[in-house]
């Protein structure tokens, strides 16, 4: 007899398959992001995320590929509210650029299925920073910025209950029982209890200061500034995540250089000509007055489009050489614009041959991550030449 029925409500709390496979998917997303870091690092939605906790990262490698029709060449069925006429435009993909390897436009139109993974900035930072570190870090004389650290070193019979050392307590109970001729585990008595307790120690860290120098002159267009800021965005995050006592000094320059606040550095534009030596000079002054190389690991990074006053180049080389003397590393990143470009400064820097000086060219967004990896290579001796 058909059509009989039963109703039930079971306990599904152990049904975890969906969650487990979801976790596996997540793992794969992380792998994919790791592979695509070069693209992800300079993703605008992240740099401009304004501290938002979760960002969306477009990922293509998690597509499920199969033979399918080109949705752009196919006719699809739809339904209007009435009076739709031939030639009516339902929607447009104008903003998006279609093409192999690029995400197609998002929306509810057919064929749109590139995958956007949600990831927190912290998670992303973790992935990005996994292989980064400050190069040539040295123990300096004056670890004045050592931080206090707590270490659980001692075991006592009295203490606060959150610090009970379970393992030792159980061992004590076993021992007591054994002494009384009762093998095995009985009740835990007060005298069995053992507490962990801590000592305050000092965790010495090498002091470091990073000088972030950026060209904000007129020739630095929105694109160039964006690249430089992407780099510094991750640099600042990286330094603050990985090192407790690192100081960052922000220097912006056009013809003249000045020290800025972090906020100004990331938001303000400027115009006018360029004299890069001004910022190097300022950097040297700051080091001399505030950061004795005996006490500090010093790093200096400068981003520019290289469009410098030709007469100034000699001076730049001279100052950079001085900087190299005092610093663990001096990095220069030159952003090559998409248009006409004369690389005057970088050419001038070719004269400087020192393992502590690194100069790189950045052609596009994808080069920001390699720049981070080059400058923050904790083992520069392993550098692939």
């Amino acid at each position, binding site marked *: 007899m058909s059509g009989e029925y039963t109703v039930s409500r079971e306990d*599904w709390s152990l049904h975890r398959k969906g969650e487990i496979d979801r976790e596996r998917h997540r793992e794969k997303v992380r792998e994919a992001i790791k592979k695509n870091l070069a693209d992800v690092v300079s993703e605008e939605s992240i740099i401009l995320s304004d501290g938002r906790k979760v960002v969306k990262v477009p990922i293509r490698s998690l597509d499920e590929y199969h033979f399918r029709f080109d949705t752009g060449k196919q006719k699809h069925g*739809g339904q*209007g509210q009435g009076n739709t006429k031939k030639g009516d435009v339902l929607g447009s993909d104008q903003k998006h650029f279609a093409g192999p390897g690029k995400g197609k436009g998002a929306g509810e139109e057919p064929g749109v299925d590139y995958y956007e993974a949600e990831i927190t900035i912290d998670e992303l930072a973790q992935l990005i920073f996994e292989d980064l570190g400050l190069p040539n870090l040295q123990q300096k004389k004056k670890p004045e910025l050592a931080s206090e650290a707590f270490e659980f070193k001692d075991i006592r019979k009295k203490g606060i209950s959150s610090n009970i050392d379970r393992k030792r307590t159980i061992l004590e109970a076993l021992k007591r029982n054994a002494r009384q001729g009762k093998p095995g585990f009985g009740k835990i008595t007060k005298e069995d209890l053992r507490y962990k307790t801590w000592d305050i120690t000092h965790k010495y860290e090498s002091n470091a200061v990073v000088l972030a120098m950026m060209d904000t002159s007129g020739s630095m267009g929105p694109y160039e500034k964006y690249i430089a800021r992407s780099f510094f965005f991750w640099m600042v995050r990286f330094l603050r995540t990985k090192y407790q006592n690192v100081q960052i000094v922000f220097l912006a320059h056009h013809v003249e250089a000045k020290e800025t606040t972090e906020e100004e550095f990331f938001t303000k534009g400027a115009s006018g000509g360029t004299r890069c030596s001004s910022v190097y000079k300022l950097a040297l002054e700051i080091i001399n007055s505030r950061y004795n190389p005996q006490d500090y690991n010093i790093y200096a990074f400068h981003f520019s489009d290289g469009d410098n006053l030709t007469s100034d180049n000699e001076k730049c080389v001279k100052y950079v050489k001085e900087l190299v003397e005092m610093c663990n590393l001096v990095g220069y990143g030159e952003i090559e614009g998409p248009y006409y470009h004369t690389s005057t400064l970088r050419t001038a820097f070719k004269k400087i041959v020192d393992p502590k000086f690194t100069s790189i060219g950045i052609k596009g967004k994808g080069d920001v991550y390699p720049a981070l990896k080059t400058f923050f290579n904790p083992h520069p001796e392993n550098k692939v030449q």
Partner: protein
Amino acid sequence: MHPQEEIKVLEKSIEEITTIAKKFNLDFYNMYFEICPADIIYSFGSYGMPTRFSHWTFGKAYHKMKTQYDYNLSRIYEMVINTDPCYAFLLEGNSLVQNKMVIAHVLAHCDFFKNNYYFSRTSRKMVESMSVAADRIRSYEFKYGRDKVESFLDAVISLQQNVDPERHINPGGGKHSGRRTSEQSCQGHSCTGGKCCQDGCRQDGRGQNDSGRTTPYDDLWDLDKRECKGKYEETGEEAIKIPEHPEKDLLFFMMNYGRDLQEWQRDIISIVREEMLYFWPQMQTKIMNEGWATYWHMRIMREMDLNEDEALEFAKTHAGVIQPSKYHINPYFLGLKIFEDIEKRWDNPTAEEKERYDRPGGEGKQKIFEVRETENDISFIRNYLTRDIVEEYDLYLYKKVGYDWKVTDKEWESVRDGLVANLYNCGFPYIVVEDGDFGKRGEIYLKHVHEGTDLDIYYLERTLPHVYKVWGRAVHLETVVDGKRVVFTYNGEKTSKKFI
């Protein structure tokens, strides 16, 4: 309401709804209703079946569905599974009215599963089969390592649409009768064994005896037959082209003729293929099935005593279900409208219809039951989508022109034909194996049977490595791009293309 109490109330409603449904001549299996929390329903929804094997793609689907639910963007009220008895899962937190509607809807789905021709060959024991298959895959993971099994599954899943649900009607796509018997019998007992099974059937002539499923474990008995030698190495009589006729079932072909496959790999292909064949009729009748269920939940709800609030809530939920979309055809809506239209036209035929088709009138109900039994979406639309429906509900075709999505067709016949064209082969490209020993190098040569729409090249280039992964040797695929014939080749390292 207390859970026990809620079940009591629900039971009363089911009783009432079942009675009405039977009065309407709906014919369904015994029903198991199960109340589930949202994440369980969504996990069933993304796997298609509660007992299916694990894979990250299901995790991805699950994540997407659950996120949409969490943000209140979409909601599944129920999930029903084509089994006997029939399992229906109700979302915990549905209101009573929603549940009533869902129960009525589900009974009609079950009636459809039980009576529509295209489901007549599907196994109703799929819950168990999938569970057993999932265990086997898990055991392979233990034995061969998760990553290895996963990446092979990735490859097979990417080809899962390339099966041939009509193999049992016309095996091998051809006239070659000698082969038919053996392959039919293979089909009959759900060929999981692959090559062994083929050869076994053919060589010892047991084909006939084996036909017909006797136990759910036949696929396991088949393991015994795997000892037999391959036919083609053995006879050497005449060089037979493999396949003799273009073979649409890529998975079937690769499972049988893949030279470098291990047994666990053949098994995985067969599992994915069987499950796809189980789901195929559901994809083939989506519009009809949803239309049928929507039609009946309306009828049944109308028979029930609803107070004003309940009636309003029902109307709202129902309106949500049949909401049109400018980019898609809503299957619930279109199916419903066509069934209603058929009923109306067979109840009140025009004078011309009376005379020309000998339609006496008053046959509406009878006709829709006949349609639900014999048609699939293609024939349903082809035969019953009328000019009135297309025009009244503003259906159209659209296409990408430059950056814009533009309406291209409004004439009812082109709209009908366009919709039918998109339903062909469940919307998947028709691809066949032309040669399984291309260039006498054991390479596989596939051909896309081009029917007016080009393939997505970006996807094509990324799917070929999956074919390679399964086949183990170079892969060629012939297709047409912008009117020119092209062969794409993946040799294990890179893809190249050549105009021919």
